[in-house]
């Protein structure tokens, strides 16, 4: 468990305090993938660095497990940091060392000298990230995705319980991003590792995160389960992120439905309801007519979801809505 209690952070610039993070409290549970999304300058880099104290908070306390990080003396802090892996946007590998030596580096820092132990563990880690054949290459000889895989292997070397991902896919192309995210999800599942990631892409959050916090100008404006935040964004910033991930939805939001007869409704299906023919059944039973204006069916992490914008008309609309709610479908009436 990672716990922030009344934490805030400001930087001193030219004798003035510039606030970077407004006071906030936040719990991140063991084994979850927690996303922090925000525009650049929103404070997400600062927030993730508070966890391993690369940034010191200006106030408040931070717990990782039972350890209060802020009071640790230097050697104890270093020991704690070894239990927290971190990967970076620009990979930050040692250019002068081979892939194998980069992966062995954190173990060497921790005092492991036994060559056989190091070799076994490095091979194990390189196999996990699929880079066994590149062990003796130098980082400059690898592609971006491969470099990030080295970064991941290195971060896992000391068997951490937490993995921090600092914009880990922002420098990668879409295909590589997908494969790196898949690897992160796999690591989370198989090693029961807590993952905290920061990103400016809602798509990254949708694919791998369980919960998300939205950061806007140093404030957490919204947080919760990804499905809730994604399907029912409350804050304007969140809506902007969601709309970026769903461009067609954004268009429908703006489209003038004035010409369309009937009530404009947005139906959200989650999990099993996505896969049942509820809409057709209810329409038959209540004799209503509907017209699909926009929609999308996809997955949020492992949860299938659908979101349809409909125009519904007929005498039985209220009854239909009740029946749909009964079937577990969430309904919002869109104002026009």
């Amino acid at each position: 468990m990672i716990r922030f209690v009344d934490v805030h952070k400001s930087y001193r610039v030219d004798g003035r305090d510039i606030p970077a993070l407004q006071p906030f409290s936040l719990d991140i549970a063991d084994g979850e993938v927690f996303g922090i999304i925000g525009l650049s300058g929103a404070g997400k880099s600062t927030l993730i660095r508070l966890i391993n104290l690369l940034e010191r908070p200006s106030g408040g306390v931070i717990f990782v497990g039972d350890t209060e990080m802020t009071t640790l003396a230097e050697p104890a802090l270093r020991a704690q940091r070894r239990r927290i892996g971190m990967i970076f946007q620009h990979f930050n590998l040692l250019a002068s060392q081979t892939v194998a030596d980069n992966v062995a580096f954190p173990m060497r820092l921790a005092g492991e000298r036994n060559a056989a132990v190091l070799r076994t563990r490095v091979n194990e880690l390189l196999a996990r990230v699929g880079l066994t054949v590149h062990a003796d290459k130098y980082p400059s000889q690898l592609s971006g995705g491969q470099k990030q895989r080295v970064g991941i292997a290195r971060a896992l070397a000391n068997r951490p319980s937490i993995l921090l991902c600092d914009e880990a896919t922002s420098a990668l192309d879409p295909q590589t991003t997908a494969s790196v995210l898949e690897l992160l999800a796999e690591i989370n599942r198989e090693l029961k590792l807590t993952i905290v990631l920061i990103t400016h892409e809602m798509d990254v959050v949708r694919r791998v995160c369980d919960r998300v916090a939205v950061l806007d100008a140093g404030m957490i404006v919204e947080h919760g389960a990804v499905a809730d935040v994604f399907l029912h964004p409350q804050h304007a910033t969140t809506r902007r992120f969601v709309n970026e991930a769903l461009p067609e939805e954004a268009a429908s939001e703006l489209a003038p439905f004035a010409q369309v007869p009937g009530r404009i409704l947005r139906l959200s299906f989650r999990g099993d309801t996505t896969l049942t023919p509820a809409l057709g059944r209810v329409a038959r039973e209540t004799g209503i007519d509907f017209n699909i204006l926009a929609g999308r069916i996809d997955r949020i992490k492992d949860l299938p979801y659908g979101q349809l914008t409909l125009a519904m008309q007929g005498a039985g609309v209220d009854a239909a809505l009740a029946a749909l709610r009964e079937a577990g479908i969430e309904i919002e009436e869109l104002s026009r």
Partner: protein
Amino acid sequence: MNMLQTLFPNIDDWGEIGRACIDTLLMLGGSLALTILIGLPLGVLLYLTGKGQLRPMPKLYAITSLLVNILRSVPFIILMIVLMPVTYFLVGTKLGIRGAIPPLVIGAAPFFARLVETALREVQQGVIEASQAMGASLWQIVRHVLLPEARGGLFAGVTVTAIALVGYTAMGGAIGSGGLGDLAYRYGYLSYKSDYMLVTVALLVVLVQLLQMLGDRIVTRYKRR
């Protein structure tokens, strides 16, 4: 031999030139080793205590930096003369190879320290942050991250320093330190034997050229980006 005599009528003892070569190499080798020994830690200190670095200490940085700048701003020939009492105190003589080494090192170490500082600053901040995140201590960061990552720049700095030292050793000749500079000064300048001048200058050019080639090779080998 005849041809040599025709070309260089004043040079009757080639062995003397050979010994001068060896003296220059000894001064160079000895002073370069000591310069690295002193300049490298000094450069690391400058880097670490600089503004926004791993252990910013503005006062210590200002003092070290000032000291380095003072030693660098004194022309070497003057520095040698000023340092004579110190040299005598350190090695018991002001003359010969031994007498040359203290001023050479005191002149070159601050210069090399600056080059070290610059080379270390070239190391990506992100790599340092990553090693901090891995729980590296300051010493581990210096030993296992900064120095290996900067080694291309460090070897380039050693090359530049070695070449500067060749120049310094030649200047040392003017006040009796021996070596090629001494020959050039005594025979070539004071006795108007310009063939001596020509030979020693040629030898110095060859030495500098060799150092540069060697340095470039090492730098290319270690610059993996």
